[in-house]
């Protein structure tokens, strides 16, 4: 713990801290462009200059200077002030004065720091450098004249994303940041470079010229595009969600989000269900709410009612539906739309037990049936970190480009019980072994077989430092999955049990992946927000709210309970899901025991107390023994990363990503 003095105040800083970090600990703001906590240190912007004694009598770049015992650091001296002004002047030599037409305006590091640390005017009369625009794909808009060469984007793509696709060509004044031959950046996390860019060189293409940051209402939300529950900030103006940005949460998404989470929001205004529909003579025709409710109620389903939950639902909606179905005397609830029937009697066995941040510390990881990059890009980032720390990764399933290496053992589930010797020895002897079972590995005995491997190596153990380690992980893909399982949305036989029960009425809560041909005799009531597969099969459509249009509780794949707020109102006649279910209860003439959202939430929490507090739900650490054998070819469920849910399928941006990045279509640049 070196002791340093910052502006005369003495303080202890952790070993290995830099001078910049020491200054931050002392509460001093150090301007910076290239330095970023999660990236390697580059030290090339020179904005963080401070005066350090002992040392040469000149300003030093604090981001790259280790803090050592007895240093005297000054951030307020005349030398520092002049140094900052000088660096800022150099940076602005070639930076265009186009803030009024720049999308970064108002949230630009360069703008803010020029105001705070720059000198008032420029002494530079020569022409400024101009750099041609670079094409970086459908998500990233470039304006490279504004680039100040901080290389954050280069370091992000190399270090975090693991795809070397952005680089700095040429040298000196002519340096240019570009992707190779201006190919589109092909990575599920590529748009994070937009947040990283301290200036307006890389901006969001879909959001270009849409709004200024100060016009936007900022709502704290939870992403539902995968089961990670990324913390997001929903920026809206009026009734429209304009963009989604990540929030920092080191336990969940650090400060990244996937491109899908960020850009599917333009799908929120397309293909929306904004009024109720009824199927008359085989055609869906608009109807009033009353007509729709009557049509359902006259069927008098009694006990013959079931609910299937979609992938993006909040717990409140599922709980309200459970209450409604329960009030009618049924317990037919299911959330695993594709018919999976793995055992859910122990939630610990289907949870991501290491936690998302914990997987970074694992030293041997066996991944069964998961294309992590497509199913949970943020977990892939964590896996990369684990490998960088020395973890060995083995994968069972068809090969995919992992970005972290790893050894593929074969694509048949039977491999779980038949691990090659070196793999077996590695995970057996590991201090922190972990198993990740993905969607494609859960069924056909895969979960049980993986549990049995875990049992044999003692995957639940006490570590040397006395902490508990549970390395058994299931990586889900649906934001609603863990919440649904906590609320009992699982039948023993999966969806097949619901099919076998032949319910008169099937409540489809935004369930778009169900094969509805199996419910030919049921009246399908679709309560959802997009005219997607579920709505096509529906007999009655009740328009509901998307995740940005309602408050809700979500549980991510590690069992982390998180609350999301309502950002905007649903369009047209659409209502919040729980109010629809509450009104349906009236139509059926039953009581569900709540009249307001607060009462609903209170009832839910009293039934499942774990949903009452934010943070990890405790499922215990006793894993079932597992056993049996698994077999069958593994086929990953995500065929198209950009098209996994109805919002993304409705999004023009996601469609373009899918066409261009995955299917290689040439998309002509629109004339701007």
């Amino acid at each position, binding site marked *: 713990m070196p002791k340093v003095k910052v502006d005369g105040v003495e303080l202890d800083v952790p070993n290995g801290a830099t001078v910049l970090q020491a200054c931050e600990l002392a509460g001093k703001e150090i301007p910076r462009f290239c330095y970023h906590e999660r990236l390697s240190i580059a030290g090339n912007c020179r904005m963080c200059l401070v005066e350090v004694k002992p040392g040469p009598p000149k300003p030093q770049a604090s981001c790259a200077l280790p803090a050592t015992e007895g240093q005297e650091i000054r951030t307020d001296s005349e030398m520092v002030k002049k140094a900052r002004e000088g660096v800022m002047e150099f940076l602005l030599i070639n930076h265009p004065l186009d803030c009024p037409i720049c999308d970064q305006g108002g949230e630009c590091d360069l703008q803010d720091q020029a105001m705070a640390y720059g000198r008032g005017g420029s002494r530079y009369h020569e022409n400024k450098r101009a750099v041609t625009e670079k094409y970086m794909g459908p998500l990233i808009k470039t304006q490279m004249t504004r680039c100040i060469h901080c290389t954050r984007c280069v370091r992000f793509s190399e270090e975090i994303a693991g795809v070397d696709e952005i680089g700095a*060509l040429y040298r000196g004044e*002519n340096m240019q940041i570009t992707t190779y031959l201006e190919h589109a950046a092909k990575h599920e996390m590529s748009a994070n470079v937009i947040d990283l860019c301290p200036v307006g060189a890389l901006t969001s293409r879909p959001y270009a010229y849409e709004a200024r940051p100060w016009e936007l209402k900022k709502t704290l939300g939870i992403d539902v595009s995968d089961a990670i529950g990324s913390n997001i900030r929903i920026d809206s103006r009026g009734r429209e969600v304009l963009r989604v940005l990540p929030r920092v949460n080191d336990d969940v998404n650090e400060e990244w989000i996937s491109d899908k989470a960020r850009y599917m929001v333009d799908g929120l205004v397309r293909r929306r269900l904004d009024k109720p529909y009824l199927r008359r003579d085989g055609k869906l025709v608009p109807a009033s709410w009353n007509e729709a409710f009557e049509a359902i109620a006259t069927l008098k389903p009694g006990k013959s009612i079931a609910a299937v939950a979609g992938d993006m639902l909040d717990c409140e909606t599922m709980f309200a539906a459970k209450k409604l179905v329960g009030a009618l005397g049924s317990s037919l609830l299911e959330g695993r739309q594709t018919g999976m029937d793995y055992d859910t009697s122990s939630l610990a066995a289907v949870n991501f037990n290491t936690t998302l941040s914990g997987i970074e510390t694992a030293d041997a990881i066996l991944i069964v049936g998961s294309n992590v990059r497509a199913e949970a890009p943020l977990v892939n980032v964590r896996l990369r970190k684990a490998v960088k720390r020395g973890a060995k990764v083995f994968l069972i399933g068809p090969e995919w480009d992992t970005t972290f290496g790893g050894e593929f053992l074969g694509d048949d589930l039977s491999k779980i019980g038949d691990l090659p010797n070196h793999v077996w020895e590695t995970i057996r002897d590991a201090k922190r072994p972990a198993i990740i079972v993905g969607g494609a590995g859960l069924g056909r005995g895969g979960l049980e077989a993986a549990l049995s491997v875990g049992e044999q190596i003692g995957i639940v153990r006490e570590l040397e430092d006395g902490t508990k380690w549970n390395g058994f992980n299931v990586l889900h893909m649906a934001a609603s999955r863990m919440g649904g399982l906590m609320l009992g949305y699982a039948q023993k036989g999966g969806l097949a049990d619901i099919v076998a029960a032949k319910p008169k009425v099937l409540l489809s809560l935004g369930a778009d992946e169900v094969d509805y041909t199996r419910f030919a005799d049921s009246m399908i009531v679709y309560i959802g927000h997009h005219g997607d597969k579920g709505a096509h099969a529906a007999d009655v459509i009740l328009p509901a709210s998307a995740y940005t249009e309602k408050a809700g509780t979500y549980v991510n794949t590690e069992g982390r309970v998180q609350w999301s707020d309502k950002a905007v109102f649903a369009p047209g006649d659409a209502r919040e899901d729980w109010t629809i279910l509450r009104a349906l209860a009236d139509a059926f003439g039953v009581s569900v025991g709540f009249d307001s959202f607060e009462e609903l939430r209170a009832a839910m929490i009293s039934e499942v107390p774990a949903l009452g507090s934010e943070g990890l739900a405790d499922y215990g650490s006793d894993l079932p023994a597992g056993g049996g054998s698994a077999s069958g070819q593994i086929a990953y469920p995500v065929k198209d990363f950009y098209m996994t849910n109805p919002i993304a399928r409705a999004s023009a941006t996601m469609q373009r990503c899918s066409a261009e990045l995955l299917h290689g279509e040439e998309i002509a640049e629109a004339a701007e």
Partner: protein
Amino acid sequence: MADRYIEPDTPELRARWGNFAWTDENAAKAKDIVARYPEGRQRSAVMPLLDLAQRQVGAELDTQGWLPIPVMEYVADYLDMPIIRVVEVATFYTMYNIAPIGRFHVQVCGTTPCMLRGSDDIMAACKARGMQKGHTTEDGLFSLTEVECMGNCASAPMVQINDDNYEDLTPERLDAVLDALARGETPKAGTQEPGRHTVEPLGGPTTLKEMVSENHDYRGEW
């Protein structure tokens, strides 16, 4: 330097260079070069390999050689490294030509010492022969570039042509060198001043004169 740009990636370029591969001789050299670096650091060989590739292209075209995109990709592939890292290196160092070039790459130094010693005349002499900065003459023989200091200030002005330096130039001496090159001869590299061998002082030593023939102790004279 500002007009340095990668030759665009066209179908013709792909067709011409798409199947670039080491010649047998260069394959052995490449293996040798890679072996100089420790295990896991093979990427360090990118610079000598790019040079080797440039020379092979040059031998094929009978020019100084340059690095078409497919050739850079071949090197990236050979070292199993991302292509963008190779392009970064190739575009950073001006010794790698990233666009087609002539048989002789005439690099005229224009930095202060050379300028004071008449590099403007050298440049004018080049231009008088029909060369243009950044261009290759029509016969494909000479490409002209103005460069910064090459470290031959003691024998300024100088030009570098491919791997050799020609120093102590006058327009006439330069013409002689270029004419010889054009005829396919190999003019003497280094200083063109008659009687001078390297960069020793013209007209004999001006300092430490007593040291010429024997060891001399100057300490008493300080």
